[in-house]
């Protein structure tokens, strides 16, 4: 039997099951190809191609949701079950919003490799979708590396801003280090079970299959496998004590990329973690549950405590994403089907809130990457009431105030924890949420109840004055004048998508600013794409809070995988 060659012919049904991934991959290739033919002045069209690809992939997800067969494809490598489609939905939403932010950001920040930027955004999304849909350790690894390699480059793509390169370098070192540890864990798991397929691992631990397991367990090899896998995944989801890279990378990376990666990698990593631990290693839960219990508590406490002392809002959001990872780990530690659907609902609400929050940061950021401290937010409500209102809604949601998306997510996770006999985790979660409320509401306080202080000096002030001068001459993008000539061709290039919204409101507010605090106004007006993306994020944040029904149903359907 050993001598018969192994053959597997993929069928048409196999290809249909990876339809969304195929569409995203095709769009990425199309973008890279089109980049060669589109002249420098018109690169904005690439964003259009990407967005069309994402929309087509969303339609593909919709088609599979209604007509899919929830089977594995390609010899059990990848699955189109509801869990995979649910995470595809979140990842595609995140990359769509990130792409809407991109033209405006590229235009302001002298990103010269525009074709590569868009191509890598889609390839990173593809990696995330593969990782979330994978039902084999091998494909989890390939998806993880596809997303990581794309994100390393995306983080470091701003060649003129050193923080961007530093972020890329730090992300590379810590992430590939974590990948190596994760891989060693996978090798150990393969060694102890003889297979890399998740269903194979699950079957290996099925009761009665290997009688010696019941008496002796599998000893040190399996423990080492679970430990290494746990460490690797904790790095990827930025759980404490493996969170050190998160703030630096999130702050240093281009904000449009941060908005996308902060949620996309979380969705992919948490779904893959759930597939490996909750599903494949579910029979061994008595060994890994206590570890995740401790990590969840540490992450909730540490993330919130470190966020409290932050003065920079972008960095604060990075720590808040660590704290949110802690709430998600509560669901992992609870380890019930109910908690798993809670985790998925939390991921959905976190996605819409977080892309919105980073979008606001992007809207206020100046060209040198500064301008996001609490002092810069002071009095924002008077200068840009629309942006301030959007930020307030999103921050209330992140704080978990009902009826918002954030409340729904936390409610389902903590309720599942209480039902699943983890009242300790729920109590700590709720207490740390109160701590979280302090730093979220402090930003709102700064926006609405404090007067702007003239703190920004140096480059920011120069940019501001130049911006004002440019505005008087009727320049559409005043702040660009400060960042040098290199921006000029790029700016022309993205004009199609990134037409500045010269609304009456922003013009008025900037006149007010010019008389009151000139140094604060360097952030340019919102582009059309950013406005659309922010509106979408805010509307969904409110909508998920008011009518969570559909997403809850979908999450519960996806979580049914665990009950099988």
């Amino acid at each position, binding site marked *: *039997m*050993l001598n*018969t*060659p*192994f053959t597997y012919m993929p069928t048409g049904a196999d290809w249909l099951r990876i339809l969304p991934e195929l569409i995203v991959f095709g769009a990425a290739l199309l973008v890279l190809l089109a980049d060669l033919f589109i002249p420098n002045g018109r690169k904005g069209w690439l964003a259009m191609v990407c967005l069309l690809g994402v929309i087509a992939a969303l339609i593909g997800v919709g088609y599979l949701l209604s007509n899919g067969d929830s089977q594995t494809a390609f*010899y059990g490598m990848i699955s189109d079950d509801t869990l995979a489609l649910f995470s595809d939905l979140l990842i595609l939403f995140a990359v769509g919003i990130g792409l809407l932010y991109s033209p405006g950001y590229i235009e302001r920040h002298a990103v010269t490799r525009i074709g590569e930027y868009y191509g890598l955004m889609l390839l990173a999304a593809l990696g995330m979708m593969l990782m979330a849909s994978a039902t084999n*350790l*091998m494909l989890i*690894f*390939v998806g993880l*590396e596809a997303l990581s*390699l794309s994100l*390393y*480059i995306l983080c*470091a793509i701003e*060649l003129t801003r*050193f*923080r961007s*390169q*530093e*972020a*890329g*370098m*730090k992300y*590379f*070192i810590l992430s*590939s*280090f974590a990948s*190596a*540890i994760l*891989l*060693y864990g*996978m*090798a*150990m798991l*393969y*060694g102890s079970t*003889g*297979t*890399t397929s998740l269903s*194979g691992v699950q079957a290996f631990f099925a009761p009665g299959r290997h009688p010696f397991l019941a008496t002796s367990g599998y000893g040190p090899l399996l423990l080492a496998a679970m430990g290494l896998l746990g460490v690797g995944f904790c790095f990827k989801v930025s759980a404490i004590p493996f969170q050190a890279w998160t*703030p*630096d990378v999130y*702050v*240093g990376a281009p904000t449009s990329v941060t908005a996308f990666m902060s949620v996309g990698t979380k969705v992919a990593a948490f779904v893959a973690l759930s597939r490996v631990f909750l599903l494949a290693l579910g029979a061994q839960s008595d060994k890994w549950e206590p570890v995740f219990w401790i990590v969840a508590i540490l992450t909730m406490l540490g993330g919130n405590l*470190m966020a409290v002392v*932050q003065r920079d809002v972008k*960095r604060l959001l990075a720590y808040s994403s660590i704290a949110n990872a802690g709430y998600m780990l509560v669901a992992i530690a609870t380890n019930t089907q109910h908690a798993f659907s809670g985790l998925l609902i939390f991921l959905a609400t976190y996605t819409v809130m977080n892309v919105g929050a980073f979008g606001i940061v992007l809207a206020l950021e100046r060209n040198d990457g500064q301008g996001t401290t609490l002092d810069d937010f002071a009095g924002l409500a008077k200068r840009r009431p629309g942006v301030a209102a959007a930020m307030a809604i999103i921050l209330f949601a992140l704080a978990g105030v009902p009826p918002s998306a954030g409340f729904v997510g936390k409610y389902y996770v903590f309720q599942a924890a209480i039902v699943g006999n983890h009242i300790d985790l729920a109590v700590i979660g709720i207490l740390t949420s109160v701590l979280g409320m302090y730093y979220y509401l402090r930003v709102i306080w700064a926006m609405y109840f404090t007067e702007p202080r003239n703190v920004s000096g140096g480059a920011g002030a120069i940019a501001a004055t130049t911006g004002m001068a440019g505005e008087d001459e009727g320049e559409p993008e005043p702040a660009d004048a400060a960042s040098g000539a290199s921006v000029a061709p790029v700016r022309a290039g993205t004009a199609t998508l990134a037409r500045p919204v010269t609304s009456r409101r922003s013009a008025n507010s900037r006149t007010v600013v010019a008389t009151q605090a000139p140094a604060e106004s360097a952030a340019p007006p919102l582009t059309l794409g950013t406005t659309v993306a922010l509106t979408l994020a805010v509307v969904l944040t409110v909508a998920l809070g008011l009518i969570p029904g559909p997403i809850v149903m979908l999450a519960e359907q996806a979580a049914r995988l665990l009950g099988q």
Partner: protein
Amino acid sequence: MVTLNSFLVLGAILFCIGLFGALSKRNAVAILMSIEIMLNAVNITLVGYSSAFMGHTHGERLTGQIFAIFIITVAAAEAAVALAMIIAIYRRRSTIDIGEINLMRW
């Protein structure tokens, strides 16, 4: 006689060398090399297990070797990206010491 144990011990030793290097070195290229050693330690472990699973079916037995090929491919891509970033940083800063690449601190 090369047994499974030899593979595993060699893999573990290499992995520890890589781990130590990645944690203790300050030169970005040295860290990259350490990470590559860790990946190759995993390859050795996988191939070792793969050769030990004689009784299993053909597909399962080859899994470890195929996994190792995937890892080799990814490691090559990773090295390319990392070296490109290191060169970009060196051009700006004239250093690849990660202790000095540190603008951001909390």
